[in-house]
């Protein structure tokens, strides 16, 4: 203790001296990573969260049974590496998988991780009282049983290529003993959802809303200590402040640079940027059904030719360059290039303004009164597009689209809405058009929900366009049940071709996520679905540390908890 004190004193005296210690594995540890972010997490509870930041934090605090490989293959257990489960065995009919829990695994409060925690996680996630968004994705899992405290067996309804993915990826495991006493309906507002206790390599220290979230290395972790001592998210009130904090060196890492930030970053020799392939795409989506009466087609967008004409009138690649510069590519369709099943040469509806005008003319939409807007039977070709006002990229795309469509004689009003209001309208299908963005998961199967008939008919479905084409559905289903990559790819390609030609949306952009980081930071691979997945492997060389790297670390759980409780 006295020695420790002396050491601390030394730290204070020699602020710039480094106190790197060696971890058991021999890799140097120490250092603080400060990530700039522009908003608070919503809730630090894996089955309830919806913000990306919350996912980053909980992914580091909680563990899954196994994690997906960097190739993002979802086929069986290809490329998956052990986490909480140190090994697993498939049932003979492949309808069961038995996971063996790593006996060394402990929760951050010191209790061991047991198979009952896995079962508890599954049961709570699929309980409709909780209202988890994961529930729908877990439909193929019948149940989880626990023959002994170290074994959790997943029982599936059907044999599918992504069984293993469903069982492991979708559910970070939560501790039963922490949550069981709380009614499911009260989870959302609970203290536990603000002070997570997991089994990951980082433990939670504090969350001061609008200021910071701090994690510290779980030095006693069953997988060994992570290399960085601490990870802190510095929460700025808005995007620009977040960027400025990064540029000024107040933070080390910024997760999503905008094109206009690149020259700024370039002015700082100590800063670097790095791109990785993302899983998101942005599109202008039409409501194909009449908002007033869903039984009827939409008076404008019900017509496939008209929708195709709108796509034709849109110079997508120029728009993308205008808004994202080099940080995005034109979107291919309802998919991203990172999937191995995506053909990067999918045929597109070309930009052809004269042809678009021709089509609109032939459909009877003509500008008879010379006001620049086409009309048919007295109804002008006019609609409003709803965009979340907080998303600058989408607002910009909408304003550009407005001008492009104006040239084709289409009047589009841009309506900026607050995100919750917009989501509500989409859910009720009470909209004409919107600029949407999907951040997909490693599985391309999510397209079923967002563009398939299932997602259109189900009350909680996210196919807001109500696009329904059996050809598309059939090809997606075939792809998802196929174990052979070329076959999967062929089916998906057919499905994508179908939907692209039906044009329920104008496929706008596929952003290329670009992170900025301080050169002292040694990054590991940035995984497409979660750049933060490998944060425990990031490190800062001892000779490049700065005072904040050596700030004392909260070590014990008790300390961590009291620090957590301090937050109002």
């Amino acid at each position, binding site marked *: 203790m006295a020695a420790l004190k002396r050491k601390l004193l030394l730290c204070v005296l020699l602020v710039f001296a480094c106190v790197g210690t060696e971890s058991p594995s021999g890799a140097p540890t120490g250092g603080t990573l400060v990530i700039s972010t522009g908003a608070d997490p*919503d809730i630090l509870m894996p089955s309830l969260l919806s913000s990306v930041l919350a996912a980053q934090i909980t992914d580091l605090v909680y563990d899954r049974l196994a994690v997906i490989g960097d190739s993002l293959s979802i086929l069986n257990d290809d490329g998956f590496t052990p986490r909480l489960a140190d090994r697993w065995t498939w049932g003979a009919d492949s309808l069961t998988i038995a996971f063996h829990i790593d006996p060394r695994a402990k929760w951050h409060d010191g209790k061991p991780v047991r198979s009952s925690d896995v079962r508890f996680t599954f049961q709570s996630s699929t309980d409709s009282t909780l*209202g988890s968004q994961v529930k729908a994705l877990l439909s193929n899992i019948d149940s989880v049983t626990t023959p002994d405290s170290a074994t959790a067996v997943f029982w599936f309804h059907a044999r599918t290529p992504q069984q293993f993915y469903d069982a492991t990826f979708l559910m970070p495991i939560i501790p039963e003993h922490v949550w069981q006493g709380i009614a499911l309906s009260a989870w959302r507002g609970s203290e536990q959802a603000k002070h997570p206790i997991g089994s990951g390599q980082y433990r939670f220290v504090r969350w001061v809303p609008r*200021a*910071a979230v701090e994690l510290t290395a779980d030095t006693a972790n069953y997988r060994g200590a992570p290399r960085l001592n601490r990870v802190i998210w*510095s929460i*700025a*009130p808005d995007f620009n402040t977040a960027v400025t904090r990064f540029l000024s060196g107040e*933070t080390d890492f910024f997760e999503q640079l905008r094109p206009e930030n690149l020259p700024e970053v370039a002015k700082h020799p100590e800063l670097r940027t790095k791109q990785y392939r993302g899983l998101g795409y942005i599109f202008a989506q039409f409501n194909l059904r009449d908002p007033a009466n869903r039984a009827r087609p939409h008076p404008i967008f019900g017509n496939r030719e008209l929708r195709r004409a709108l796509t034709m009138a849109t110079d997508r690649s120029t728009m993308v360059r205008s808004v994202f510069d080099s940080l995005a590519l034109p979107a291919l369709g309802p998919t991203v290039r990172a999937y191995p099943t995506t053909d990067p040469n999918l045929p597109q509806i070309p930009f052809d303004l004269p042809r678009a005008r021709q089509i609109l003319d032939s459909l009877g939409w003509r500008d008879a009164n010379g006001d620049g807007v086409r009309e048919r039977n007295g109804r002008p070709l006019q609609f409003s597009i709803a965009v979340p006002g907080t998303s600058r990229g989408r607002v910009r795309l909408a304003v550009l689209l407005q001008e492009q469509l104006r040239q084709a004689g289409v009047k589009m009003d841009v309506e900026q809405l607050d995100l*919750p209001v917009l989501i*509500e309208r989409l859910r009720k299908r009470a909209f004409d058009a919107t600029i949407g963005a999907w951040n997909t998961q490693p599985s391309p199967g999510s397209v079923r929900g967002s563009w398939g008939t299932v997602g259109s008919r189900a009350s909680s479905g996210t196919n807001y366009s109500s696009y329904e084409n059996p050809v598309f559905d059939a090809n997606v289903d075939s792809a998802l049940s196929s174990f052979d990559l070329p076959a999967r790819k062929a089916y998906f390609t057919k499905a994508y071709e179908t939907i692209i030609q039906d044009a329920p949306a104008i496929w706008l952009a596929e952003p290329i996520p670009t992170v900025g980081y301080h050169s002292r930071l040694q990054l590991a691979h940035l995984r497409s679905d979660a750049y933060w997945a490998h944060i425990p492997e990031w490190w800062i060389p001892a000779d490049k540390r700065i005072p904040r790297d050596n700030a004392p670390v909260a070590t014990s759980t008790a300390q961590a908890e009291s620090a957590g409780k301090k937050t109002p």
Partner: protein
Amino acid sequence: MLRYVAGRLVQAAVIVAIVATISFALIHVAPGDPFSAVLDNPNVSENVRATLRAQYGLDRPLPEQFVRYVGQLARGDLGWSFSHDRPVREVLASALPNTLLLMVIALVGSFALGILIALIQVARRGSAIDHTLSGISLFFFSMPDFWLAILALLAFTYWLPLFPVGGAVDPVMHEYMGLGGRILDRLRHLALPALTLTVLASPGVARYQRAALLDVLPADYIRTARLKGLTEREILRRHALRNALLPIISLLGLSFPALLTGAFFIEKIFAWPGMGLAVVNAIGTRDYPLVVGGVILGSIMVTVGSLLADLLYAWADPRLRAH
């Protein structure tokens, strides 16, 4: 005096009651039900919705809702902020000290600066210095709050990075600082917003005070003072300023709304975690209870401020003190 205070207190209570009525009307007359966003939001938990319904008694007849609402207000219950997932009162209470700190510094700073400028101007009235200062005052006086704040941010955090960007403390390192470091950290973060608000508020004070001094100067008693053989300086300091301070106390009361408004924009732009930032952010998230709570609290602050100013005036003016 006591009667006067009592009268003013009653008046303040009436004001708060009317503000409450207005806010109630806003909630219920507004076409886009301000709670639809909450009540339909899948991310809002059932008990929050239940609280909201109970709070506003949304399914009861209007008069009953009103009585309920006023009762809750009287108990200091401003409802539930769903974007913060905490009672509005707590959100505002934790933000209020920051806003008050900003306002008090700006108030003291702007009055000191404003009076100083006015004294300089009046001492050299008609000179080039007077005209220049008048011009500068008017220029800043005419500046929209948010625009000056944007410029200040641009100038002193981007172009000339003297001050940290946003917040009340360093979000990362503050926890790890010693006492001295923490104080320094706070001051560094406070400096720019407080200075900006001071600069925004000073011209009004300077202009008002200059006019007040000039109003006083032709007064016969100033001539009397001159006649006694006092120097211009003594006259300005002893006789004129003392009299011109009375209108400045009225200005104190009048300047609260402007100061609060300025604080709103400044908090937004400098991310200063006060009630302005809370309310402005609540606009974005349509957290209506928080917005209304902010309006009510802001009005109370203004009312209390002008009440204090009035009492101060009554105390400072011998003609009123006697009664």
